[in-house]
């Protein structure tokens, strides 16, 4: 904040002297534009929420109408008569276990690639990173038969295995980048105090990497939660389906019960909305890291 001697630059004066009306002329349309975009982005959800509180008769009479009263019957019906609670539980188990394994496996590899010395370290890092560029589609058909041969069909493991594998390269890249910035003096000090290399990993590197581990956790949990292709192909038993695939079945079963369908979609949206509002920063960092660091 060094003082700038002369503020009376002609251009600044001209800018400051710009009439209020002219400023408003820019300010108003810009703010109006943002408001319109906000409505476009969120209105479908508002409508969904309103519809879930109505009855089918009300919906048939007027698609855009408001609910006549606060009526949560649709939610009660969906929660009690549809398998959505089961789908929820399945999604939670699969996503949580996958995320835990992703964190463990990636942070271990990241530690080796950032703080251990061994021949071929770089080559092996790039080999692991190469898997990041293989689309899941290519593994789909062969994995289907591998999992069948291993008799893993319709268990949580058929999803957890591929989810971990496809998440590890990118997560390792992120965590390694962070671990590289941990100063060597810290590790030296720990070495002198007699800490083993494994001890350094979980006593020093893991606690220090908390910010990046938080990003990986939230981001990968969300990816697993939303995953569709593998969940569609590998799981056929209804009781084992995850929410994104189960929701499709639900929509089929409640085909004509429109307001119940709305309630089902609201139930699927709310937990994600809460997670998003709480961990917004981590989610945005995780999702955009590929574009900003790639």
């Amino acid at each position, binding site marked *: 904040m060094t003082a700038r001697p002369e503020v009376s630059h002609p251009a600044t004066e001209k800018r400051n002297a710009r009439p209020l009306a002219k400023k408003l002329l820019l300010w108003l349309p810009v703010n109006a534009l943002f408001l319109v975009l906000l409505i476009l*982005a969120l209105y479908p959800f508002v409508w969904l929420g309103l519809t879930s509180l109505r009855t089918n008769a009300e919906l048939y009479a007027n698609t855009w109408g408001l609910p006549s009263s606060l009526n949560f019957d649709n939610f009660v019906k969906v929660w009690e008569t549809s398998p959505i609670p089961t789908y929820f539980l399945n999604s939670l188990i699969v996503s949580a276990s996958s995320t835990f394994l992703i964190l463990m496996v990636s942070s271990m590899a990241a530690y080796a690639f950032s703080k251990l010395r061994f021949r071929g370290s770089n080559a092996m890092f790039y080999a692991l990173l190469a898997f990041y560029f293989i689309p899941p589609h290519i593994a789909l058909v062969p994995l289907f038969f591998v999992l069948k041969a291993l008799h893993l069909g319709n268990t949580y493991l058929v999803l957890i295995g591929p989810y971990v594998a496809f998440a590890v390269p990118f997560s390792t890249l992120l965590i390694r980048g962070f671990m590289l910035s941990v100063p060597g003096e810290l590790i030296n000090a720990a070495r002198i105090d007699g800490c083993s290399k494994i001890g350094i990993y979980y006593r020093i590197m893991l606690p220090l990497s908390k910010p990046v581990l938080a990003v990986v956790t939230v981001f990968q949990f969300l990816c697993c939660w939303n995953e569709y292709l593998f969940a569609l192909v590998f799981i056929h038993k209804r009781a084992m389906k995850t929410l994104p695939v189960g929701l*499709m079945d639900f929509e089929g079963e409640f085909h004509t019960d429109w307001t119940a369908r709305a309630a089902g979609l609201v139930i699927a949206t709310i937990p994600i909305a809460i997670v998003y509002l709480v961990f917004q920063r981590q989610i*945005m960092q995780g999702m955009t890291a590929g574009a900003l660091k790639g």
Partner: protein
Amino acid sequence: MTKRNEVPKDRTKSDHPILVAFFLAPAFIFTIVFIAYPAIMSAYYSLYEWRGISEARTFVGLENWQQLFSDSIIWDCIVHNLALAAVAVFIEIPLAFAIAILLARTKVLGRKLYRTAYFFPVVLSVTVVGLLWSWVYNPQYGLLNAGLRAIGLDQLAKPWLGDTNLVLPAVLLVSIWRFSGFYLVVFTAALESVPQDIYDVASLDGTKLWQLGLYVLLPMLRDVIVVAIAIAITNSIKRFDLMYVMTMGGPVHASELLATYMYKNAFLSFDMGYASTIAFFLFALTLALVVTQMQTTKRDEAIEF
């Protein structure tokens, strides 16, 4: 990629191979079992005629590949995938870039609220998005037709997802709605790295906002934009779930994508050999793009320094 923080004392000595293996084995076991092995098998299957039900496979050499290049549906798929990519590159990215600059450089009330709202569709599962929009487009009870009827435009009310000419534009619109927020957040983050001096100089010169965006910020963020375009195209080639949930590729392949066509060949017609060929083709396309993008960004660095 700096190495200056490494332990100086152990410089000359490598860590014990067992220690290294302990830390690396899990990552390589997972990726080899669930990615490398299936990918290789996929290449192998693509040379066979295989129904998937029994072990009986017939070696057909490159016949599946011949079929792929003469299959008119494959070309339709490519056109649809390219349409998704074009919408991302020519609408989503420019829109997001403009909005990111407007959000960052004008006095907006509730800037954070807007960013949060615009990004929200990005975090939802595609099932929720797809089902929601299928409903918006529903001929009888959909928001869109109801809205059109309400303002007296009854003749414009259409079965949006049931018409072979309308289905693709309808889904492309959902793509814009769902993905623009992603690029907005990417560009917003990139704009934060632009030094304040640039804005100071620009405002002293009386540069208009659109000039600043077009002549200053666009070249400055070129690398991020190139990566964003590469991501947009790769994702457009890989897209499966949005189309599967909304249209299943129909009606009559009018919105078929490579991935939905691959899925249908594998799990509806049980033509595993051909499905693997399509999967490999899709992989080759994304790989070509990644290599192109890497060369583009690398060359820029060479020019700059």
